[in-house]
């Protein structure tokens, strides 16, 4: 997969994600692991498209990367931190500060305003930024949303708008890593294209490492690197990035 790497030399010096002999069992007494990933490295600033059918372990992997689940065996390193061996509390804090997550839907607290939703990310990261409103506005305008949307309740927005707000919130703390899971499946085709463009551009501009998970192969055109989930989880060493 190094062969497909096109990012600059600076970001190649460190790995964003490094998985080593990961095993995960949903039930601790299960005999064979539900997910096995022998080896996977992702460089800093890389944007990777991870595809696979439902049940192939995409979501489990994402939860492992987000630190919501911990592997039954093996080591997960995120930015050279042995993420999987941190305490649950430290992992939550790390996620708040360094990892942004966007899902298919239900990304926002419906009864809070857009601004409050975004401020919530700031609150849990305990960054207490004073320029939070300005940054939020800047992000939203990059995502081609009007500033007036800030004071609307999340539930008043269209699904497409909600997804963009979700990106804004995921990016507000300038996370090094963005995890995205099927963010477009609730969107129609034109909204999907607009969404993908803005997502990829915004991430590239911020040099954010992104893991994009989907079963929709048509989306892989937005990415330089694609990985099939079955390859990642089965083969011991030769998981190939496919273009």
């Amino acid at each position, binding site marked *: 997969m190094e062969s497909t790497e096109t990012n600059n030399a600076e970001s190649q010096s460190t790995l964003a994600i490094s998985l080593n002999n990961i095993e995960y069992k949903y039930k601790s007494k299960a005999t064979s692991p539900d997910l096995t990933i022998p080896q996977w490295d992702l460089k800093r600033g890389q944007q990777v498209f991870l595809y696979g059918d439902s049940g192939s372990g995409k*979501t489990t992997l*994402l*939860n492992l990367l*987000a630190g*919501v*689940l911990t592997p039954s065996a093996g080591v997960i390193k995120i930015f050279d931190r042995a993420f999987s061996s941190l305490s*649950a*509390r430290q992992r*939550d*804090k*790390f*996620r*708040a*500060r360094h990892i942004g*997550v966007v*899902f*298919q*839907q*239900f*990304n*926002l*607290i*419906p*009864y*809070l305003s857009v601004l*409050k939703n975004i*401020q*919530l*990310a*700031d*609150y*849990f*990261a305990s960054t207490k930024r004073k320029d939070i409103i300005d940054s939020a506005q800047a992000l939203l305008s990059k995502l081609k949303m009007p500033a007036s949307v800030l004071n609307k309740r999340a539930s008043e927005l269209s699904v497409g708008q909600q997804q963009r707000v979700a990106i804004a*919130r995921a990016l507000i703390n300038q996370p090094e890593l963005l995890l995205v*899971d*099927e963010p477009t*499946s609730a969107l129609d085709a034109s909204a999907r294209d607009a969404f993908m463009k803005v997502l990829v551009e915004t991430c590239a501009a911020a040099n954010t490492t992104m893991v994009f998970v989907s079963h929709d192969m048509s989306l892989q055109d937005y990415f330089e690197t694609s990985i099939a989930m079955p390859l990642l989880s089965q083969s011991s060493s030769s998981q190939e990035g496919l273009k």
Partner: protein
Amino acid sequence: MTLFSLAWHSLGSRRKSVVLTFFSLLISISVLLSVEHLRLQAKESFNRTVSGVDIIVGAPSGQLNLLLYSVFRMGTPTNSIKYSSYQTLKNHSLVEWAVPISLGDSHHGFRVLGTSQEYFQYFKYADKKGLVFEQGQAFTGMFDTVIGSDVAKQLGYKLGDKIVIAHGIAATSFTHHDNAPFTITGILKPTGTPVDKTVHTSLAGIEAVHLSPRQLRNILEGNTKEEIAPRQVTAVMLGLKSRLATFKLQRDINNTNSDKLMAILPGVAMTELWQLMGTVENLLRVIGFLVLISSLFGLSTMLLASMDQRKGEIAVLRILGAGPRVIFSLVLLEALILVLLAIAAASGLISLTLYLSGDWLASHYGLFLSGHLFSTDIMLAMLVILGATIATAIVPAIEAYKSALHTVLSSKL
């Protein structure tokens, strides 16, 4: 954005069930706090009514009965004692002072108390506080009267006004002693005791209004030289030279042969009264707590029922880096916010009610309740309520904690 603000908005998003729960809490906390307040205040109000009186002597009945009508001006005297008994008691070697009281008449629903001038000197209330005149002084003539502060306030009386006394104690009486008006010579300062609701006259004055019209006219016109000697009094309050003699004197009085007398010790009678009230009081407290607990269960149920629809919300918070402990605190905080609001509203409600009904309670039940709610005991009761809230809200909070712990970030919720 803070956790408080998040909890606040979260409550706001479930407005209907939250408002209903709030009212249930408001009612139960109001019941509990007012029972507690009434209990404390009633006790204090009763205990401060009389002080410094060692023995009360009246016609034999129950000691509570005698206490109620002589001190609290409640109920009706069953019988009278001879005036000569009062004189005997006054001259008794162990007695320092004796104040006669004569009840049975009223003025616009306020009790009329016939007594001697010593009353203003010796009668004490609360912590041995004496009676103080706001205006004027004690009565000197037969048809002079001293009124309590509430009488003056409610009927708008001032010094020099003439008032008429009615027979009997109802607010509307058909027998007015119209021929013999009394002149107000003094108005007392407020005491927070039944004294405020009393019209004081001399014993002779009381006696005079009950004479036949012809006799009365003779007296008013000064045609007769004869002194009006009271024949009977309702009760006598005694102060002793040494309190050690209390029991001996009580025994002596109870064994008097010349008149049927009963002597009671106000403190002992008061304690008996409280023992009687104690059962009712505890019953009320228990009911108050049961009502509170049931509405706290309601609060718990409301939070627990919301947990299913909040799974998504919890997942979002987890994504943002909120740990299970934060989710736990959030649910607890919501419960506490609701209960604190209910406590504040209940306090306001009770204070307002007390303020509005204070006069009515005082005149009908002799209860002088302070609208000031925040005594140590009430604060303690509030702490207990908060403690009980935490104890019951633990259940939904743990549920939320578990939910947060097992939340797997997933697109399929």
